[in-house]
């Protein structure tokens, strides 16, 4: 069928040539311009119809081409043909509007758009017949009922002005769509839609100019026809571009054979699909989620103009390509790229899964630490509110009893020793409680809690704390243990005569530094507790570093983020 249509399309200029050479007063430029519209629309319509038989866009473009071809019949000398040409004189404008609004899938998207298109057809065909019946096209027209030139002129004015308004409305629709969905990322597509809008505006100008007999009407007419004729050519170029893109799949296969790093895979796919906005999301069945290469979850797009194409391999989901909606037009290309990238995508997916598991592990480590911390806090509070308070109240009771027994010194001294026993128990309990959780830390912050640590250290410690606000609980606890463990280490191993502790806020957290002037050469792996501290700090996404040259003292530095 394509061949038949192509033949037909070729026949049009030949026919025009004959018309032009046999007629006496034929405007060759006008004929040429009509062909300039007719041929590309017929070709583009035929190609579009072949590619997507279910879409109305192809037939619509074909109809546009034929209508403009038929309107050229006005130029013949045969009255019946002339009449047909006159009837189709304005219809191409309405069809053009329909094509513009129905692009790319052949459907109109709202009642308003259907109304615009319906009104355009009514004005272009209905009013055309009315004005012809009043003799608008002269005596050669076979549908003239009575010659009433004034009435015919009025009807024509109404027709042209209403079509102008409708075309402007159509241009408005295109502009609104673009504002909502953003400019298409493929350049030819963007150009095509711009041409559509421009063509509609030009038609409105043309018809208004015709109504009011503006000077330069001929120039406006030719420019308008030229613009309208470029649109299907751009459309065809766009299809060609897509074809070229399919050949890019070959390049992609070559590139993938070199086994690119997972990070480069997206760029290769983006090149092959000619979509710089492409996002690659891997499906992780264990997480029931799509993630990017770094293992972060990705939402499949619900937003305007983006589509996700799922890629399957060996019967299972592997990944999703999130791309420009314009690529929906090219399912074969998407399929080919997906198939070519199969193995590499599988690799990328494993990589992403590893990262996702790592993220999960990090999260669960921090959560474990938090849970432990909360548990210790609760234990300490229970001790404080329970056993300790009761023992103090008991001791108070005994002491008051003791005072009342001034006349029985034997009893008094027994009570006294019971009270001392309680005091010792309280002291032990206090140590246990402090070991479980330093309550002063959650109550009053790092600066207060570190004061005692520094004062109790068995060597002179200079403490500097530069914090003006409290830090998150888990950060304070980690910083506290870094200082207390490090000072314990210094006392045990460093043979130092002094140490300094420095705590300060940084842009995203806190830095803690403990420096001594001892022998250095600390064991950073076993026994020293440094490993445990590093674990604690790293669980919060921080970093613990130790410099401990032999004979050069030891410096422990922890950076803990407050995220």
């Amino acid at each position, binding site marked *: 069928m394509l061949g038949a249509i192509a033949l037909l399309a070729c026949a049009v200029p030949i026919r025009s040539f004959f018309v032009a050479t046999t007629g006496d007063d034929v405007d060759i430029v006008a004929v040429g311009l009509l062909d300039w519209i007719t041929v590309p629309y017929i070709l583009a319509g035929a190609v579009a119809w072949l590619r997507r038989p279910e879409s109305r866009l192809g037939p619509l473009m074909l109809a546009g081409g034929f209508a403009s071809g038929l309107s050229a019949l006005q130029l013949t000398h045969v009255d019946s043909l002339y009449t047909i040409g006159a009837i189709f004189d304005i219809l191409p404008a309405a069809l053009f509007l329909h094509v513009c609004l129905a692009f790319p899938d052949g459907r109109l998207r709202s009642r308003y758009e259907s109304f615009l298109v319906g009104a355009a057809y009514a004005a272009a065909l209905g009013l055309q017949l009315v004005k012809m019946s009043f003799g608008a096209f002269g005596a050669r027209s076979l549908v003239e009922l009575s010659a009433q030139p004034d009435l015919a002129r009025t009807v024509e004015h109404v027709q042209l002005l209403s079509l102008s308004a409708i075309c402007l409305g159509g241009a408005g629709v295109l502009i609104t769509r673009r504002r909502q969905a953003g400019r298409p990322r493929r350049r030819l597509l963007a150009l095509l839609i711009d041409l559509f809008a421009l063509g509609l505006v030009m038609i409105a100008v043309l018809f208004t100019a015709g109504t009011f007999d503006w000077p330069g009407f001929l120039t406006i007419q030719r420019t308008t026809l030229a613009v309208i004729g470029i649109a299907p050519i751009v459309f065809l170029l766009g299809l060609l571009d897509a074809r070229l893109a399919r050949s890019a799949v070959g390049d992609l296969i070559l590139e993938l054979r070199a086994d690119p790093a997972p990070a480069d895979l997206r760029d290769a796919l983006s090149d092959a699909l000619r979509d710089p906005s492409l996002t690659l999301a891997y499906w992780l069945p264990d997480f029931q989620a799509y993630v990017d290469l770094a293992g972060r979850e990705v939402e499949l797009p619900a937003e305007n103009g983006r589509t996700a194409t799922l890629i399957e391999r060996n019967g299972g989901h592997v990944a999703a390509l999130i791309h420009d909606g314009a690529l929906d037009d090219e399912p074969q290309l998407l399929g080919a790229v997906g198939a070519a990238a199969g193995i590499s995508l599988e690799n990328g997916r494993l990589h992403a899964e590893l990262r996702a598991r790592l993220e999960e592990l990090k999260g669960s480590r921090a959560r474990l630490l938090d849970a432990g911390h909360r548990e210790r806090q609760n234990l300490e*509070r229970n001790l404080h509110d329970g056993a300790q308070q009761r023992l*103090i109240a008991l001791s108070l009771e005994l002491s008051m009893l003791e005072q009342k027994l001034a006349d029985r010194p034997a009893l008094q001294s027994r009570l006294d020793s019971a009270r001392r026993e309680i005091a010792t128990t309280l002291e032990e309990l206090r140590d246990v409680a402090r070991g479980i959780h330093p309550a002063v830390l959650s109550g*009053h912050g790092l600066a207060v809690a570190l004061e005692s640590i520094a004062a109790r250290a068995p060597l002179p410690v200079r403490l500097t704390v530069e914090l003006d606000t409290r830090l998150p609980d888990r950060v304070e606890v980690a910083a506290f243990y870094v200082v207390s463990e490090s000072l314990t280490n210094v006392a045990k191993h460093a043979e130092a005569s002094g140490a300094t502790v420095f705590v300060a806020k940084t842009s995203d957290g806190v830095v803690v530094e403990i420096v001594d002037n001892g022998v250095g050469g600390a064991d950073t792996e076993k026994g020293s507790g440094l490993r445990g501290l590093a674990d604690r700090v790293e669980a919060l996404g921080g970093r613990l570093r130790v410099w401990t040259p032999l004979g050069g003292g030891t410096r422990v530095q922890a950076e803990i983020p407050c995220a």
Partner: protein
Amino acid sequence: MRVALAEDSVLLREGLARLLGEAGFDVVAQCDNADDLLLKVRSYDPDVAIVDIRLPPTHNDEGLQAALDIRSQHPSVSVLVLSQYVELGLALKLLSDSAEGVGYLLKDRIGDVEEFVAAVRRVAAGGSALDPLIVQTLVSRQRPDDPLVQLTPREREVLELMAEGSSNQGIAEKLVITVRAVEKYVSSIFGKLGLPSTGSESRRVLAVLTFLRT
């Protein structure tokens, strides 16, 4: 002497109230939270407010905050803070600009009724009471070229009692020496440590603390 009491453990609060009542204090207000305490201090104007450092709702720093508020808003009301742990950092916060009419004691001290009542009385009268544990921490703190080594053991004892807030009279009773002897020790200590003599007994607490802190 009039006392206001803030302690969220009923057992302990009632025990304290009974103890203070028997010791001749007039317990004008009892409450279990900081806001209530501030309200009652404003309306009853007690001589001393005894405050648990850990009060609801969060049991974090509400008690300490209430104590600091009373000190700044009601300078005539003395404050005695009780806690199940004594922390140097908190003592420094509480006594940051004056040691007059302020005390900070371990809750365990309640068990020694006689000593405790004496401390309440001292603080209510505008003196100070600092827990021996804190003084111990300060005195035994490691310093480069420790100046405390110049002191005799007896002088050290006197220094500690001074830091705890004892008056010369109190020190004399405790060490079973004369007040005159205490005065001699005090001036010797101030001389050795290079401290300016301040006269007032409560003001010297701050001087000694400041010295010991560094």
